[in-house]
């Protein structure tokens, strides 16, 4: 177990560096000279040279990357080109918002995926509906779903507000009400993939002997489904959900945009539109590191519980 862990970590670290380096060199190579962006077209060659020297833009990419990583390790991601704010100060308030949204959505999605897909075992009639829900969850674009929600629940029925976020200081009730639609939208997004995983595991488990034994003992189908099969099938979903936390930013980007929520996703989109490198790089790195770490944890968790996987590695 220990050796396994060490091996995985030692594999992960160079991956992180490779990926962040690719990101860094890609951004700085393709997105134009930062000096020109800062000074404008009319800048004299002299002025550009000065800026290059001052910020080190004329040094080889590797050196610049090394500097950036060194600074990032201390939490200094530089200042945004657009707002002149420290990048850390921009990201810090946005992170909890995205985390909150995603946490709600993932928890709800796990619950929905397990419950909705456990029922057909007992009630065959529900099979069609639950399958349909799965397909819809996987395929429906979340911007479309979000807009549908807004149209029905906000515009027509006037039950809910159109934006997704007000600060806690405006009141818990208000805060939560604004979150309902974005959370539902994001839940649908995760629900689909969670369902697939759960159903696969469920099918395998339900063939096993102990199920037949339970049935022979006279236990009702619902009880078997929920009390026996579910708990055994749920593990892969949970590990996958953990993995999804690493996908945090990707899932939330569109939802935050539809509901005007000031989270990391929207920050990323804005920084890309604005060619704001420091912010883009910082968020990119957070995503890469986050994904890698969550992958590691999820794999380990799965390996812990399922020794077969570990051995085969």
């Amino acid at each position, binding site marked *: 177990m220990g050796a396994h862990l060490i091996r995985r970590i030692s594999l992960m670290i160079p991956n992180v560096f490779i990926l962040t380096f690719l990101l860094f060199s890609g951004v700085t190579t393709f997105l134009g000279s930062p000096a020109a962006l800062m000074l404008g077209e009319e800048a004299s060659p002299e002025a550009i040279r000065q800026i290059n020297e001052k910020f080190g833009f004329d040094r080889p990419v590797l050196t610049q990357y090394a500097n950036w990583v060194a600074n990032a390790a201390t939490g200094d991601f530089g200042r945004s080109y657009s707002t002149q704010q420290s990048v850390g100060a921009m990201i810090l308030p946005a992170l909890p918002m995205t985390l909150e949204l995603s946490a709600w959505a993932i928890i709800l999605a796990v619950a929905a995926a397990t419950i909705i897909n456990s029922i057909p075992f007992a009630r065959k009639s529900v099979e069609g509906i639950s399958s349909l829900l799965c397909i819809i969850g996987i395929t*429906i674009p979340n*911007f479309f779903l979000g807009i549908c929600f807004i*149209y029905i629940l906000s515009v027509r029925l006037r039950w809910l507000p159109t934006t997704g976020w007000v600060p806690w200081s405006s009141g818990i009730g208000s805060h939560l009400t604004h979150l309902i639609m974005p959370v539902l939208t994001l839940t649908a997004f995760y629900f689909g993939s969670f369902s697939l995983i759960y159903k696969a595991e469920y099918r395998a488990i339900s063939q096993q002997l102990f199920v037949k034994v339970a049935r022979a003992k006279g236990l009702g189908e619902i009880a078997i489904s929920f009390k026996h099969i579910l708990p055994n099938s749920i593990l892969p979903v949970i590990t996958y959900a953990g993995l999804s936390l690493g996908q945090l*930013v990707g899932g939330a*980007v569109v939802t935050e945009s539809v509901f005007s929520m000031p989270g990391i996703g929207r920050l990323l989109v804005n920084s890309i*539109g604005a060619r704001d490198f420091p912010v883009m790089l910082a968020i990119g790195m957070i995503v890469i590191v986050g994904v*890698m770490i969550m992958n590691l944890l999820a794999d380990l968790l799965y390996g812990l519980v399922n020794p077969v996987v570990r051995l085969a590695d």
Partner: protein
Amino acid sequence: MTAKRKIGLMLIALVAICGLFAPYLAPFNPVSSGIDPLEGASARHWLGTDPLGRDVLSRVIYGARISLMVGIGAALIAAVIGVPVGLMAGYFRGRIDLVLVQIIDIFIALPGLVLALIVTAMLGAKALNLALVLGFVSSPTVARLVRGQALQVRQTAYVEAARAAGGGPAWIMVRHVWPNIMRTVSAQFAITVSYAIFTSASLSFLGLGVPPPTPDWGGMVREGFEYLSVLPLLSLGPGAAVAVTVMAFYLIGSSVE
């Protein structure tokens, strides 16, 4: 043929016809401004008109072109990259396999949308670039799948016999391994198209897709969103088009099991 497949094929046919025959099907020119902006659905304009007086139905029909180009393009690229990589890893095993699996694992966990966002920002949001990025992002999944299948097939008697008979690797791969994995690969192809259309529409919705005035479903949803309270069809129309197309390809891909 299952109901799933039938529905999927019908929908794909519908979308493909729109894409291929758009100039004949669309009642109006999709990019010329008109004089009756923001009209609701009527006999003349089945889905109404947009703020510049353009017929929404025509734009939705033409929109199929970009979506299909990007979707199929991405799936092709994913296959072109993923299949050889997977085959090599699965067939040759040993060190080649280890290296390739490492590379695959690095990329497979990365969130596709975020990557696509960043890369299209770098290279510009042309249909070709979108297809390239999305194809690249989907290729690890294809590679993994192919590798798994190749590993299985490799054990079969056919292949053992072929090797015993002295056939070279390339010949064996083409003659024996490939036909057996083709079904899985084509299923994955459909699923990749589905994913690519989903993601490129999301990108356009975020404002980072193809530039105006090209009719593009995600972009149309974005523009129509503003008028949701009075002309919901402006955004729900193209949005439904995306949903239907994504579902159609997914149904086909998932019905192959």
